[in-house]
């Protein structure tokens, strides 16, 4: 009986060893995920991203002389370079006083031509309404389209008054050229699955689909059997 049990113990041990190595390696790396910066590193492999079913987000682009301001997912891009995130929607961009003024869901973002974020004007700074559009008036002032009224900046975007004048020419979205689209899509898709998420999915078996979880469950049961047969063999031998 003990010889038979020993034989099975060895067989199960051999089978489980592959899983043990896999689970130990992924487990240790997950354990030190923060120190390794895995939450902020992302999966960029196209095959894996496709395997996850990751699709690029729709892109909205506004042309500004020889530069572009685009939005995809939660990111804002200046000529394809990501400049900030946590942006829900883009409503347009204009150039004023050698700065780019970008109208987003709840505020105006000011950047330089290199994409450095200079400032963000919110309702706390006097912005009357959330922007739904932006234009440069015939007088050269910045005009923002709010939900109910049009607002004109009177002084460095910190003071606003109701706009009265000719209907402003709101900036309209333009076509996203293929080269720009490719740059933005590559970045956007590469920001969706963190390495920590990938490792957690691998460790739990989820990365291998719905059957992957059962495979890891089976591995766990094998380890349990191994422990039980090990204890049994040890007690028999004693």
């Amino acid at each position, binding site marked *: 009986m003990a010889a038979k049990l020993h034989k099975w113990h060895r067989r199960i041990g051999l089978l489980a060893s592959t899983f043990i190595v896999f689970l130990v390696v992924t487990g240790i790396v997950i354990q030190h995920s*923060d120190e390794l910066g895995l*939450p902020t590193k992302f999966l960029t492999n196209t095959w894996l991203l496709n395997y996850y079913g990751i699709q690029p987000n729709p892109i909205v682009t506004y042309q500004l002389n020889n530069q572009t301001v685009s939005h995809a997912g939660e990111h804002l891009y200046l000529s394809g370079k990501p400049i900030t995130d946590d942006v829900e929607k883009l409503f347009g961009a204009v150039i004023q006083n050698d700065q780019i003024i970008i109208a987003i869901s709840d505020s105006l973002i000011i950047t330089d031509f290199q994409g450095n974020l*200079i400032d963000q004007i919110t309702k706390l700074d006097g912005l009357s309404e959330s922007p739904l559009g932006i234009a440069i008036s015939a007088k050269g002032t910045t005009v923002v389209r709010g939900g109910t009224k049009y607002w004109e900046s009177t002084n460095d975007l910190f003071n606003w008054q109701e706009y009265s004048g000719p209907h402003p020419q709101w900036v309209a979205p333009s076509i996203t050229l293929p080269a720009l689209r490719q740059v933005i899509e590559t970045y956007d898709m590469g920001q969706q699955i963190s390495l920590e998420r990938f490792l957690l999915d691998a460790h739990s078996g989820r990365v291998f689909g719905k059957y992957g979880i059962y495979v890891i469950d089976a591995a766990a049961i094998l380890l349990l059997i191994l422990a039980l047969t090990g204890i049994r063999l040890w007690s028999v031998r004693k």
Partner: protein
Amino acid sequence: MRIQLYILVISITLVFASQSLAKGVYQTPEEFLSQTFGTAPEPQRITLSKDLGKEVKKILGHRYKKIRVPYWQEGCRSAWILEEIGKERYITTGFVVNGQGLEKVKVLVFRESRGWEVKHDFFGKQFVNAKLTEKNKLDKHIDNITGATMSVDAVTNISRMALLLHDHVTKDSC
């Protein structure tokens, strides 16, 4: 069987409840300012010039997200609404600083899925009267919260930035 079903339902409810606790606007910046000042003074801006920007970078380990930082000042008391990444996303925190150091620290918006424990008042209260040492560190120890280390670090670092900027805007007048 019925007990197992109850356990399953309770477990699922707890998981979703903890998720809903995590993200959210705990206090709007408007509320924070009116609670601090009554009627908030006009916002002002401090520009992170080359030298100041360098000091901020030293504190945070990277450049601050904006070059101009808004603040609200009444006498020798100032309020700051600053943002710093915890693990993956920005945590918006409000700070009130006076001559004695930090007066109030309040997490206003939390966007991460974990580490939300920093929103509790007991965490913010640890910062009260904390000042900067010569090396721009806090002169008080801030306890870590298990499972929220990165959020704790983010709020601690950004509180140092608030103190540094307060010193800059009040150095000639207070």
